Every structure is written in C-alpha cells, then in structure tokens.
C-alpha cells in the first residue's frame, strides 16, 4: 500500500520529466520522422508527425544515405581525422605532462605558463595564418592538413599534468630512472595509473574533432576529402534528396550520442579541467 502511494506521489514528477525530455528531443523527432518519408510527401507541405507508413528506404535502400551518397566516405574521413587528432593529443600531452610533473629542468615554470597560454589562442583566432601555412605546405585536401593544427593542446597538457601530480614520486624513485627509463616509466607505470585522465582527454578530443566545422570547410574542396559535418550541410542544399539528407544527419549524429552516453563521466571531469572527481 505505502509503495503504491509513493509511486502515485511520483507521477507528477515523472510527467514533468517526460514532458521536458519530449520538448528537448522534439527537433530530433521531427527530423527522424521526416527521414522516414518518401520525397513526394514533402511536395504537399509538412508531413504528418504521426506518419502512417514510415519506411527506412532513405537509409538503406538504393538511393539511400548508406548506399548511394557520399556519406560513408564522409564518415570515413571524419573517423580518420578525429582518430588521428585524438591519438596525437594524447601522445603529445602525455609526453609534455610527464616532463612537467616528473622532471626538473631550468625554465620549467615559465614553459608551463607558455603551454597554458596556448589555451587562450583557439583555432578561430589563428585561422588565417594557419590556412596560409597549410596552403604553403600543399596540404589542402589532405588528412595531414585536416589534423595538423590540433595535434597538441594546452588543455591536454594541463589536464594530464594535474593527474600525474597525484602519482607519488616514490614510484619514480623506486623505478631507478636513467635516460631511457623515463619513457619506460611513463608507458608502463604512469599511463596505466592515469587511464581515467587519458580517457577524459581522448573523449574530449574525439568529440571536438568530429564536430568541428570551420577548419575542414577551409582546407577541403575535394568532395572526397570532406568531413561529415561539411557533407551534411551541403547535402541539405540538394532539395530533390532532402529526405536522404535528414537520414544522413541522424547517422552523423548517432556515433557522438553513443560516445557521450558511454563516457559522460569523463566528459564532466574534462569540463572542469580535471578539478572534479568525476
């Protein structure tokens, strides 16, 4: 009885939660419903939001997003770009953070501030000279052009150093370090201990790289080198296949939803620069 009453009391709360979730998801719902419609439907104005005969042709049939558009190629390009950027950031940040956390050398404090200062210069500010550099290197329409400016971040160095500092120095003393030993200590002791911090950085790097728009727009012209963000934006210009473009949009969104759902814990930690125990 008391259990039943408790659940009855909760009904308004759940109702509110469901209404809010529905409202927030409404834009996605509309695009999803539209992506299940044949193109003729759109000629008669807005399709019904409760479609009588939804069908998956825009996704998987011939002429659909997966088979007959450039979407697979865009997804491949985005995966390669985001993957290389992620690996690059993790490697360069772990190396630099190691030096700042475990090594003593003259100018360490100043250099760390210089590294931190890079966080104040986002790509948006440096975009013109960087574009010229990539042109000068003949790297337009290449993967190296897409990834080069993002392979190191002050954020990554800062985040990992924060975590590395919590690793007791006694571990290092015990490892009896010489020149080569530092790398071995980093790879076999520090990296396994700092898995969480590395995952935080990796999730952040991948999400940001996958979702970026300005830089890929500038350094790619060849449709074969476009990333999925540029791809879907240009596909919506093609009105004869706008329903297929809706399907592509959701297919480009799906991997990031999975990433955020699976690694939400790490994302929270990253947002606060590692200051929170997530």
């Amino acid at each position, binding site marked *: 009885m008391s259990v039943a009453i408790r659940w009855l009391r909760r009904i308004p709360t759940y109702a509110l939660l469901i209404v809010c979730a529905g409202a927030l998801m409404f834009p996605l719902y509309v695009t999803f419903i539209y992506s299940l419609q044949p193109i003729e439907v759109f000629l008669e104005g807005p399709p019904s939001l409760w479609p009588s005969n939804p069908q998956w042709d825009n996704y998987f049939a011939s002429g659909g997003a997966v088979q007959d558009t450039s979407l697979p190629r865009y997804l491949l390009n985005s995966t390669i770009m985001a993957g290389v950027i992620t690996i690059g950031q993790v490697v360069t940040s772990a190396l630099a953070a190691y030096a700042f956390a475990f090594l003593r050398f003259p100018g360490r404090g100043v250099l760390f501030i210089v590294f931190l200062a890079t966080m104040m210069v986002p790509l948006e500010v440096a975009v013109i000279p960087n574009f010229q550099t990539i042109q000068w290197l003949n790297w337009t329409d290449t993967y190296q052009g897409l990834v080069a400016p993002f392979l190191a971040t002050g954020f990554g160095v800062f985040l990992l150093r924060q975590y590395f500092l919590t690793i007791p120095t006694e571990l290092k003393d015990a490892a009896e370090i010489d020149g080569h030993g530092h790398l071995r200590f980093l790879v076999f002791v520090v990296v396994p201990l700092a898995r969480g911090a590395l995952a935080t950085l990796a999730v952040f790097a991948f999400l940001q790289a996958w979702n970026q728009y300005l830089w890929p727009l500038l350094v790619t012209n060849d449709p074969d080198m476009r990333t999925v963000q540029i791809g879907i934006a240009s596909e919506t210009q093609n009105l004869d296949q706008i329903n297929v473009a809706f399907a592509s949009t959701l297919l480009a969104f799906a991997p990031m939803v999975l990433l955020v759902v699976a690694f939400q814990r790490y*994302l929270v930690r990253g947002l606060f620069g590692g200051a929170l125990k997530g």
Partner: protein
Amino acid sequence: MTAAARPLTRRLPRGVRQLLVALPFLAPAIVLFGAFVFYPLVKSVYLGFHITDPFGHNETFVGFEQYADVLGSSEFASSLLVTGTFTLYTVVPAIVIGTFLAVLANQRLPGIVVFRTIFSSTLAASVAITSVLWLVLLHPTIGPLNEFLIDRGLADGPLLQDGGWAVGERATAFDLFAAWFVDPNWALISVSVATAWMNIGLFTVIVLAGLQTVPDELYESARVDGAGRWSQFWHVTLPLLSPTLFFASIVGMIFAFQSFGQIDILTDGGPVDATNVILYSLYQESFQNFRFGAGSVQALGLFFILLLLTLLQFRFLAGRVFYRR
C-alpha cells in the same frame, strides 16, 4: 643514452643535462605550438600592418592605419553588437533551462539516469547537425512550426510574408525560403534558439556536476525548518550553485564568440548583416574578399575578447584545482 656517451654528458652543467632529458618529451608539443599557435599570432600582427590586392598578394605596408580603420569601423561595431546580442540570447536562456533540467534530474528516482542522459544529449550535437534540425523545424513550407502557427491563424504577421509567400497559399514546390532565417527581425533570434538548444545539454551537464557538491545535510536542515521545494532551491541550491553558474556562463560566452557554423549554414551572416558575428565577418573578409590584413585585425580583436574570458575561466578553475608538489 649509451654507456660510452654517459661520461661526456656528466661533464655538462647540471641544468643542461636536465634539459637534454626533458627536451624529447617537450619537443613535439613545442614544435606544434610554435607552428600553429605562436607563429600565427605574430603573423596576424604582421598581416594587420599590410593590405593586399584582391588575390591576397602584393602586400603594401600601411602600419597602424588598418587597425584603426577596421576596429573603428561601423561594421566592426555592428558585428560586436550582433555577437554580444547573440551571446545574451544563447547563454541566458540555455543556462536557465539547463539549471531547471539539472535540478529536475538530480532527484533520487528509479530510472532518473535515463532522463539525465536525455537532458545532456544535445551536448553531442555539432553546429552542423543542430543547424539541419532547426532548418527543418523552422522551414516555411515543410516545417511543423509554421504549420502550427497557420492552423491557429497566428501566422499572418510580416515574418512569413517576408519569406516570399502569402499566408494560406501553400507553396507547391520546394521554396527554399526559410522565412525565420531570412526575416531581419527574426534571423538572429532563430539562429540563437538553435544554438541555445545545443547549449542546453552542456549546461545541464555542468550544473548537474555542480549540484553534486551541495551537501545533502543542507537540504535536510532546510526541510526541518519547513522550507518548501521552491524555497530550498532559492535559499540553498542557488547560492551554492552560483560559482558553477558563473563558470557555465563564461564557457557559454567563449563558445558564443567562437560561433561560425550555424551562421554559415543558416543565414550566411544576413539578412543585411543581422547575424554577421565577428567570426563570420572575419571569414568573409579573409576567405571571400581575400583581405587577409583586415581579417587578421578582426582576429586579434577576437583574441583579446577571448583572452579576457579565458582568464576569468582560469580564475574559477584555480579556485577549485588542488595543486601538489
């Protein structure tokens, strides 16, 4: 280091020896920062001193003239105003809604994780995806919003007629006039609504994390004092949440000043510059008009604004971060 090399390095001063050990770890990041962060800053200052021909070549030195021209122009003032308005429209509503959702999803209830995930999920949406979703939603001929307004007789205002078609006259073919994004009075609001939707997830995540730091005992003692839900929120949650909300608004402002994709996809900066934020104007100057000098001056202007905001963000983080060694 081989055994033969060791005696040689022993003879070097200690500082140099330490540097030789540290440098290989730092070198990749130093090279990348040098090439893609510090060199561009210096180059921007240099470009700002020069004007170029319509093809982006043949630089002529003009000194500070271009800085004064660009930063003093009415166009720059207008793009600052647009960016500021855009920031206000995207940050304030999204923080209010995000806080509401976070407090709602912070209760201990079966299945609440599902709602937390849904409320946070727009964080995963890119500007391109967000733009497509809202392009559909606000589309004049196939979008559900206009249909809803027309069905209720609310849509005979100027906003739809500016889209190039009259109320009651259904367009028969695709008429890519997205009225909400074309009407000068609505374009900035429409782009802001789309962006705010994208930010709601981010702010929900930040506020949810902030709520974890509010001790349960405070709510209990408030309840003992007879405080209702609203009073608990107003007198306990909100004061303790204020540093988090401050942090969230700085993050939101930084994002707003870096906004580009939604403008490019939805409005191209128009109509009549109504949505021409700083970054879009920089893009047009540099990559459509090939005036790299003028673009660089805008980039430096943007740099100083972001510098200020980032320093504020650092101050917040420094208050929380726990340093050892």
